[in-house]
């Protein structure tokens, strides 16, 4: 028997309302990368919270053995001392502090009465080297890209005695190139004997990285297998408990010759006068899905936020919506023109989490549920129910706070909100980020329905297969400019990546 560095046996965790974990068994061998897969709400995060002491011993039943010794953590500190480090999806760095301060925050070095900065800086450089970062430790963390911050988090975990490194959706916000760096680093760490638990929705990464895969579904362990015995399809089947015949339900559909959006020589500056996107030319036809690919920071979101009127700053060029030249100064103007923008960050820009579902869905088209300028609750609920049913929202009541819904259902509320206003142009910015496979599929289906009704859709996505799988036409951006355009037929991952990294431009 190979030795297990971690064994979790018969873990059951009940919340007042639901059994989140039901007799879960999870064993990780020393020095392996062990992927933990499952749909949202399958219990992955709960299991990791049990392991890391967020849920203290006694609030769950079952046993945790670390290196064969029984462990019962009362808090996160205790689990850290035992060598368990967890890096969450939402990074826990202090943006206004320097790299060095972040690395050693809470470390003994920071606890002495007089802090020995020289030693901290020296150690910081060493820690950064370990993760392949060549940065000045006195730099502020807020100046780093998300990808670098992720690596910094790992470096921070490694400054302590870490036996088990848990990464929760580490690549959700990373660009392809950052992902490559991360994967290289994890391979490196594996050689050094660090055990890693890798939670991810991105099965491509799982297949590339993991030695074994444990799949959870509805709070139960479905299987633990060595990676040789698995394929991506098998993992999906086990996760959802059903066969997904196709990942991307692209349908051939009619595309009109009419432009719903035509952008010519568009250049936009931010508040401080810096060019954000320059000389953009493109069109979106009625009933067409135009994919926008590119690396993080390529200016895709910025372009559309700017077009949508959500960014202050100077703009140049012409914008035609439905063959009419428009000047959009604010989101309100854009909404009036039939423009809809589903943001990449639904919690921050899409939803009022403390409000119920019905109120969130009617936020934009509130006039549709008013009689004589008075909100009619009856009408509001009827209209909201109609649209959310269409979106296949799973919630028996519409007066549940949106914050209590899963990511996929939250995204459906955002979609409902915008679609209620009958948009002619729908911008979907990372519409499936952090959403489980089943909900993703439903969102793709909704896109299909909309284009059939003649809506023009822009799909911004960092997941190449998604862009390639769903778009009629693909545009690639790099550093604020459009660097490539492909039809559905000619596009390949390689060609798109080439343009996204600016390779084509420099030829």
């Amino acid at each position, binding site marked *: 028997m190979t030795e297990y560095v971690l064994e979790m046996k018969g873990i059951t965790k009940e919340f007042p309302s639901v059994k989140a974990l039901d007799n879960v068994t999870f064993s990780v061998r020393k020095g392996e990368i062990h992927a933990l897969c499952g749909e949202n709400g399958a219990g992955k995060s709960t299991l990791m919270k049990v392991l890391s002491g967020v849920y203290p011993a006694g609030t769950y039943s079952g046993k945790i053995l670390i290196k064969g010794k029984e462990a019962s953590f009362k808090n996160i500190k205790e689990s850290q001392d035992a060598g368990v480090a967890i890096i969450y999806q939402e990074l826990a760095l202090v943006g206004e502090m320097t790299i060095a301060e972040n690395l050693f925050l809470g470390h003994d070095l920071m606890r002495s009465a007089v802090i020995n900065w020289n030693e901290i800086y020296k150690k910081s450089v060493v820690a950064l080297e370990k993760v392949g970062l060549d940065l000045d430790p006195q730099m502020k963390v807020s100046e780093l890209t998300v990808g670098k911050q992720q690596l910094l988090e790992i470096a921070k975990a490694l400054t302590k005695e870490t036996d088990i490194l848990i990464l929760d959706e580490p690549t959700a916000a990373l660009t392809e190139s950052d992902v490559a760096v991360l994967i290289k680093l994890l391979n490196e760490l594996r050689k050094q004997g660090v055990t890693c638990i890798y939670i991810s929705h991105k099965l491509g990464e799982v297949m590339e990285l993991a030695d074994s895969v444990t799949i959870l579904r509805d709070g139960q362990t479905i299987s633990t297998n060595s990676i040789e015995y698995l394929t991506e399809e098998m993992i999906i089947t086990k996760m959802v408990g059903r066969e997904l015949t196709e990942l991307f339900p692209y349908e051939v559909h009619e595309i009109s010759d009419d432009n719903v959006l035509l952008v010519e020589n568009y250049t936009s500056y931010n508040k401080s006068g810096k060019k954000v996107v320059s000389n953009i030319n493109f069109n979106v036809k009625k009933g067409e899905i135009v994919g926008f690919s590119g690396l993080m920071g390529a200016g895709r979101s910025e372009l559309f936020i700017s077009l949508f009127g959500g960014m202050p700053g100077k703009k140049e060029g012409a914008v035609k919506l439905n063959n009419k030249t428009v000047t959009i100064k604010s989101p309100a103007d854009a909404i009036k023109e039939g423009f809809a923008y589903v943001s990449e960050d639904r919690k921050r820009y899409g*939803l009022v989490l403390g409000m119920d579902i019905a109120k969130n869905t009617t936020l934009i088209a509130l006039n549709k549920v008013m009689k004589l300028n008075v909100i009619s609750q009856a009408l509001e609920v009827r209209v909201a129910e109609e649209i959310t049913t269409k979106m296949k929202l799973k919630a028996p009541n519409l007066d549940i706070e949106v914050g209590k819904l899963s990511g996929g259902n939250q995204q459906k509320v955002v979609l409902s909100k915008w679609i209620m206003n009958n948009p002619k142009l729908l911008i979907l910015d990372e519409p499936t980020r952090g959403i489980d496979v089943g909900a993703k599929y439903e969102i793709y289906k909704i896109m299909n329905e909309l284009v059939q009704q003649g809506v023009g859709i822009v799909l911004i996505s960092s997941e190449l297969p998604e862009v390639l799988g769903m778009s009629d036409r693909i545009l690639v951006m790099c550093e604020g400019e459009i660097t490539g355009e492909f039809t559905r037929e000619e596009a390949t991952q390689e060609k798109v990546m080439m343009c996204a990294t600016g390779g084509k431009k420099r030829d």
Partner: protein
Amino acid sequence: MINEQTIKKESKLSFKFDLQSYTLILALIFIAIIFTFFTGGEFLSSRNISNLFTQMSIIAVLAVGMTLVIVAGHIDLSVGSIVGVTGGIAAMLQVWQGWSTPVVVLAAIIIGGLIGLWQGWWVAYRAVPAFIVTLGGMLIFRGVLIGLSDGQTISSLNPSFKQIGNSYLPFIPGYIIAAIAVILMITFTVNSRRKRKEMGLLLLPSVIDYGKVTVYSVVLVVITYMLNRYLGIPIPFLIVVVIALVFMFITTKTAFGRRIYAIGGNPEAAALSGINIKRNTLYVFVSMGALAGVAGVLLTARLNAATVSAGNSYELDAIAACVIGGTSLMGGKGKIFGAIIGALIMASIDNGMSMMNIGAYWQYIVKGLILILAVWVDIISKNK
């Protein structure tokens, strides 16, 4: 993913949360029992209840406006000074200039609104934090009051002005209003239950819904009876009821109200949903200012005088009333009804403790502790 079972349980939870808001009323009852015990029943006498409702009215009016401000994610520290300055100007216009009561009242409310416009402009269009703008306003308008009145107390207003703060609704109209209110409550409940059922919304057990109506009706009738046993329903209290109803309507049934909750709940999402944050924020401050004008009129009328210290520290009582009433200082959450109950709790403590002849300093201490307690209860109930 939330499955059916989770959600069903969740609904039960939200019902429990509702109970949490009844704890407010339970707290009020508890306070009433304690004071009744220690004052030998005097606290619940007709005369004292009448006093209590008159006393609470000014803070209640301010708390209504403050609820909007806090829900929108801001704060207003200047309302005490606005009460002072608008009440003072009203007195000056009448006593020194001889203006008639209706004109004076209107002037006070308009001046309050203009002050709100000024402060709202700084907050909304100049992005200065409301805390700072209204802290400044607190000093500015107190200064204006002292300057205009030359530090004097202005007294002896027209009888018609005094009546606003010191008269009562006769018995018969009082009972008629109470009866209408009971009938309206019953119809509303029946209607809303029917609609909710039709739409498959969460339906509380009928015992609870109708029980609530019964309790409210009984309370209403008993209060009207008690007030009528003394001199009738105090006019200031009636004004509070009207204002509260108007603002309940605004917060729950109008686009403006809905937008305030959205702005306070998530300003970034609200902005991207096409909501004009600046303009709506401005309106919130204007309404706060105008309500402070109403409170100024009530105070001057009740005291039959305007002093330079009128309204001192009322902002804190109003904020406390909102917070005790369940309004979240994070914005996006809060109810007018809660604020009214909060104001009643604050007034009960003042009133009860002075009846017990406890030193005034204790009132500050107890109110402060209750404020902390209220927020703590709110926090633990959310963490559960």
